[in-house]
């Protein structure tokens, strides 16, 4: 078989030949390597750094220091006047960022929990990369929420801690439900990130020296791989996988209720719950595509682990989610459009014909039209750069969607005397800061922990085999649990 594709052998062959001559060994699960070799590859990808890496790292560190820490400190000292919030858009980009980052974090749980429960084997090499996105994304979401507070130094009042005033927080408030849900989600997904990481930390401990060895030894907690340890770990992972799925759905639903519970035209929509969850999955899947493409392009040996089939599967998921997202978007839109309530009418006119109308049409194009036009095509799906580009544009579209929902929809309320358009000010820098911090965390993690769950890949390879049925070899998957 002649290798014609720059990225994947066999990916650019004609349609008929592909069907007839598809070699199962193109798939990671049917292309096993000895575990020792895979361990070596993962350790090398973690330890090899180049000049380019450090340049990017330093640039991000500078951006974080200025646009995140310094800008936030300045805003705390001066007050929210340096931001763009005003009447009637009391909520601005900080909430947009919060919703955006929580959205990104949902993809991690989808891949590591839902795909695990559905026994989708293609998830195996990238569950950790996706789960890292969850944890780091939630950190940015938490930071954005604290940035949004007027008196952030009193934020501890939001927590139900006994105090000498004997005051408890108000559980009628959707913000309190938000707090509990996001706390549950961030703790749950960090624990769910850590549990399958333990055996890989043990592997790294065995192959490291110096400070890394101490680091891995401490984090690996003395894991060896005894039958008891595996049993505890697998039971826990099963419980987590099943339990974190309803938590994931509830978190973004509760975040959407911050808006839906408010009596603002455009906001008090009953479909916001599932609409936001699907939107979250949409942007998250796109972000996973970007991350996987960058991993494959910049880290050593990743081309063994991340293959055409993974991008193909991811692309199919992205397309399915875009259908579901379009369904909920249209639901929300047409009910408002048909209604005739004068405030909602004014709001829709504002969205479609006002100064931010370009955002509205761009979001429809990026979120719905673009995936529908491109992702049905296998060649596009299997190309990591194209998929990453589509993912990036989907994320842009989703960011516009949140921007329209929060500050722009707030402009049109029931008191026309107050209508005024929001202008972002220092929020732009703080947004750049959160993106930089996210990338910085990711770069640091790629150097500190193994990004591929090698034991899960080996486990998958053990369960996949080729069985002769009739005249051909048939891929067969057994169940080991």
């Amino acid at each position: 078989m002649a290798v014609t594709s720059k990225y994947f052998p066999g990916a650019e062959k004609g349609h008929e030949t592909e069907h007839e001559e598809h070699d199962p060994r193109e798939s990671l699960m049917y292309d096993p390597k000895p575990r020792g070799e895979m361990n070596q590859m993962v350790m090398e990808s973690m330890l090899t750094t180049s000049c380019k890496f450090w340049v990017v790292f330093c640039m991000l560190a500078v951006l974080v220091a200025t646009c995140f820490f310094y800008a936030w400190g300045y805003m705390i000292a001066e007050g929210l006047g340096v931001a763009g919030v005003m009447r009637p858009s009391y909520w601005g980009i900080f909430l947009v960022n919060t919703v955006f980052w929580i959205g990104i974090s949902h993809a991690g749980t989808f891949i590591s929990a839902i795909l695990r429960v559905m026994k989708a084997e293609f998830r195996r090499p990238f569950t950790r990369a996706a789960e890292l996105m969850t944890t780091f994304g939630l950190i940015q979401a938490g930071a954005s929420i604290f940035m949004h507070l007027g008196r952030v130094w009193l934020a501890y009042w939001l927590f139900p801690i006994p105090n000498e005033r004997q005051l408890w927080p108000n559980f009628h408030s959707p913000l309190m439900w938000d707090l509990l849900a996001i706390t549950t989600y961030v703790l749950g997904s960090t624990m769910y990130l850590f549990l399958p990481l333990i055996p890989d930390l043990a592997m790294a401990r065995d192959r490291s020296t110096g400070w890394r060895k101490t680091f891995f030894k401490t984090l690996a907690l003395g894991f060896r791989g005894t039958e008891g340890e595996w049993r505890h770990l697998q039971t826990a992972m099963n419980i987590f996988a099943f339990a974190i799925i309803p938590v994931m759905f509830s978190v973004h639903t509760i975040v959407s209720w911050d808006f839906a519970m408010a009596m603002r035209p455009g906001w008090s929509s009953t479909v916001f719950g599932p609409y936001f969850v699907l939107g979250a999955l949409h942007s998250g899947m796109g972000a996973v595509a970007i991350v996987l493409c960058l991993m494959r392009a910049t880290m050593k040996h990743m081309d063994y682990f991340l293959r055409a089939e993974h991008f193909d599967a991811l692309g199919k998921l992205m397309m399915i989610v875009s259908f579901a997202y379009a369904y909920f978007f249209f639901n929300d839109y047409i009910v408002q459009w048909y209604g005739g309530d004068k405030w909602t009418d004014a709001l829709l006119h504002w969205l479609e014909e006002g100064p931010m109308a370009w955002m509205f049409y761009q979001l429809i194009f990026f979120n719905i039209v673009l995936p529908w036009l491109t992702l049905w095509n296998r060649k596009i799906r299997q190309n990591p750069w194209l998929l990453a580009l589509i993912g990036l544009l989907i994320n842009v579209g989703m960011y516009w969607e949140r921007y329209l929902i929060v500050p722009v929809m707030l402009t049109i309320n029931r008191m026309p005397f107050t209508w005024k358009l929001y202008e972002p000010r220092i929020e732009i820098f703080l947004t750049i800061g959160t993106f930089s911090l996210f990338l910085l965390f990711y770069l640091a993690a790629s150097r500190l922990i193994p990004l591929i769950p090698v034991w899960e890949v080996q486990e998958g390879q053990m369960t996949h085999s080729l069985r002769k049925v009739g005249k051909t070899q048939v891929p067969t998957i057994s169940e080991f649990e």
Partner: protein
Amino acid sequence: MSIDLNLVGAKGAIAQEAEGKWGMVIDQDVCTGCQACVAACAMENNLSFVGEEDAGYGRTQHWIRIERFWEGAYPEVKSTPFQPMLCQQCGSAPCEPVCPVFASVHSQSQDINLQVYNRCVGTRYCANNCPYQVRQFNYRDYHLDPIHANEVDGQLVYPFHNQFNPDVTVRRRGVMEKCTFCIQRIHKAEDTAKSQGREVVDGEMVPACAQACPSNAITFGRLDDPESLVSQMAHDERGFKHLEELNTMPRITYLKEG
């Protein structure tokens, strides 16, 4: 075990006292739009001067504002009557359930909506949920803005601070505020009444806006006293409540142009 269905339930908002205790009637027919109420309120309640730029951007510190709408250009201008808009002290206030730290609560004794400045952490959900958009946020420490200060012997001295009302706090940045029906005056009247062993009677105190209005467009008093002027005016046939369909149960009745 029986469950008190007035306390536990899954139903939506329940009705508070439909009428309320302290209330107001604003006659839009006689309001001249002079903004004396705005100025009086600012003086009485230590409102800050946010400056031209911030005010133009939508950050005015107006606990009461005069709204007007018009179309056409001079001299063919058609305009609506002036509409003073202030906190309606709703019986079923949408701003109250959404504050996560209980900074916006309902007063049991005065039956108005309270804003507890020292509890507010500044999430601004209450302001978003207010359908009348009458809540104001302190975006900066406007009182301490050096632009208002004079430099005396190397120190900044703020002449505006001399006119502060000692009965009212001064809010720092990050805190939400709104019209309180001049609760400091209500409390003073109640203290006087208590020391005399009686209830507060209607007409014993008025908020700054009612006091300042030159055309007596604002009437204030006890809504639960059927003899009071405000209670009788509230039942006037010209009376209506803003955004009544939202079921917020405002304590302010507006009298439309007659």
